[in-house]
């Protein structure tokens, strides 16, 4: 039985309203997140992705429209936004920039400590979070944060947010700036989190990442939802995506190019593995008489 975790209707947001610098970031956006699913948010720069994300964890109260997060109405002035921020984890771009402690263990412990955890409970929580991202607790907790590689630092930052044990995890450009191996490692971590039951929202420019993670997809443009639907459906519309300043995942474009050449590969492959299977099936089809 799935539960509606986040419900957004008609959300509007203007930066610096009433000044000559006012700019409309969101112009009537509807958004839903149900338990267990991973929703992708894509759009060219300035389309409103980050603004939308920052409304989902209570950083902003909605100026216009409705936002309900885990049963809480963010328009209600009595609603304590800090509570929301603790139950929905938002990981910013390049989160390693927010690390401030000397030792990894201390930095991951920052959030849960503020929640009131201490002693053995705190230790367990930090261990849990670090294991989740693949940083062995005993190996990494006493490491100096500045001795970690970029990928390790990012994992540490992610652990810092996971340590709050949010029900929803929102990630803004999770693989930006990572080398290929670190990127794959992080994607594995995210898939593992999904398997553990965490609902994810991922905003990204990287269509391959989206193809690998998302069940459903929102395409934003000019502060509005231009396209929406199951990932497979949206990502296969190469033309429409390009008209919106984006593109389909490389695999989709490749298979489309093959089809244009007369290779009738079937299916709606999004990832390299799926494409491999589809092509293999087509080759088999040609071999049999």
């Amino acid at each position, binding site marked *: 039985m799935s539960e509606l975790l986040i419900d957004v209707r008609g959300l509007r947001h203007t*930066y*610096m309203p009433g*000044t000559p610098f006012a700019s409309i970031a969101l112009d009537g956006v509807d958004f839903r997140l149900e338990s267990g699913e991973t929703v992708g948010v894509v759009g060219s720069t300035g389309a409103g992705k980050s603004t939308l994300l*920052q409304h989902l*964890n209570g*950083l*902003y*109260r909605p100026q216009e429209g409705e936002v309900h997060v885990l049963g809480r109405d963010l328009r209600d002035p009595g609603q304590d936004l*800090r509570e929301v*921020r*603790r139950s929905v*984890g*938002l*990981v*910013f771009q390049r*989160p390693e*920039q*927010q*690390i*401030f402690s000397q030792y990894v263990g201390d930095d991951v412990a*920052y*959030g*849960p400590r*503020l*929640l009131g955890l201490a002693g053995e409970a705190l230790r367990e929580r930090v261990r849990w979070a670090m294991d989740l991202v693949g940083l062995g607790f005993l190996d990494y907790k006493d490491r100096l944060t500045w001795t970690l590689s970029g990928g390790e630092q990012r994992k540490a930052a992610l652990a*810092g*947010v996971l340590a*709050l044990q949010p029900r929803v995890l929102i990630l803004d450009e999770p693989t930006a700036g990572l080398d290929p191996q670190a990127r794959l490692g992080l994607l594995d971590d995210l898939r593992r989190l999904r398997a553990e039951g965490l609902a994810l929202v991922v905003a990204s420019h990287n269509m391959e990442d989206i193809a690998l993670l998302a069940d459903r997809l929102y395409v934003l443009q000019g502060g509005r939802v231009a396209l929406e639907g199951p990932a497979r459906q949206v990502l296969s519309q190469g033309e429409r995506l390009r008209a919106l300043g984006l593109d389909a995942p490389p695999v989709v474009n490749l298979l489309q190019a093959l089809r244009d050449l007369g290779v009738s590969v079937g299916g709606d492959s999004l990832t390299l593995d799926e494409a491999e299977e589809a092509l293999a099936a087509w080759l088999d089809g040609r071999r049999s008489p």
Partner: protein
Amino acid sequence: MSEFDFLGQVTIGQYLPGDSPLHRMDPRAKLLMALAWIAAVVACRSLLGMALAALAVAAGLWVARIPARFALRSVWRALPFLALLAVLQVLVMPGNRTGAVLWQWWIVTVTTGGLLAGALLVARFVVLILAISLLSFTTGTNDLMHGLEHLLRPLQRLGLPAHELALTFDIALRSVPLLALEAERLAKAQASRGGEFGGAKGGAIRRVQQALPLLVPLFLGALQRAERLALAMEARGYVGGRGRTQWVALRMRSADYVALALVLGIAVAVVLV
């Protein structure tokens, strides 16, 4: 207004676009005038001199066509504080007990000397505020930087790295909005980790520790930015200021010299009167 929107708060000075003679004046002349003004006002000891200075600044504001409400806005904001200080000066400060005693009660002694000191105080600050505001209203920060650099250049022969200094100011000016954006992002990121700021408790060390999650990444990010900037500058062949020519050439016109002479004259008069 979200609790996180920093950019709106960060303004250095206030430029009011316009086309008055003061707006068009060479920024070097304006800087020198402002400096002379501030020095004169600080050194002035007589009420008459202050009145003269105030009159001249008012004239400057009129020439620059600055609407009165803008000019007076800063003064207005400072007024309650000024009044408080003046009262303190008159009533409490012992150094002003000169001249005839007008009124005495307990430790409070009001003398003519005290009243004079109080009036001078208020006048001094009002004129200072107006003069600095006038400079800020009529000169954009870019022009100010150019003017500053040109002014300092002759000092380069004496060993003062004028170009480097002006470049430093320029970098500072440009970095402020960028750092403000960084700060906003950091505040949001730490808040998203459950960070809490403002609920202050405890001794100095405790309170500083609460602020560290914001301050440390801010400083470190800034230092990284500085390093990248230095690398970029070197990669583009920056070798310092010696022998360097300018893209923007400032030319003093006769009107600038006249205005400058006029202001210097008034400044001297203000001090001597």
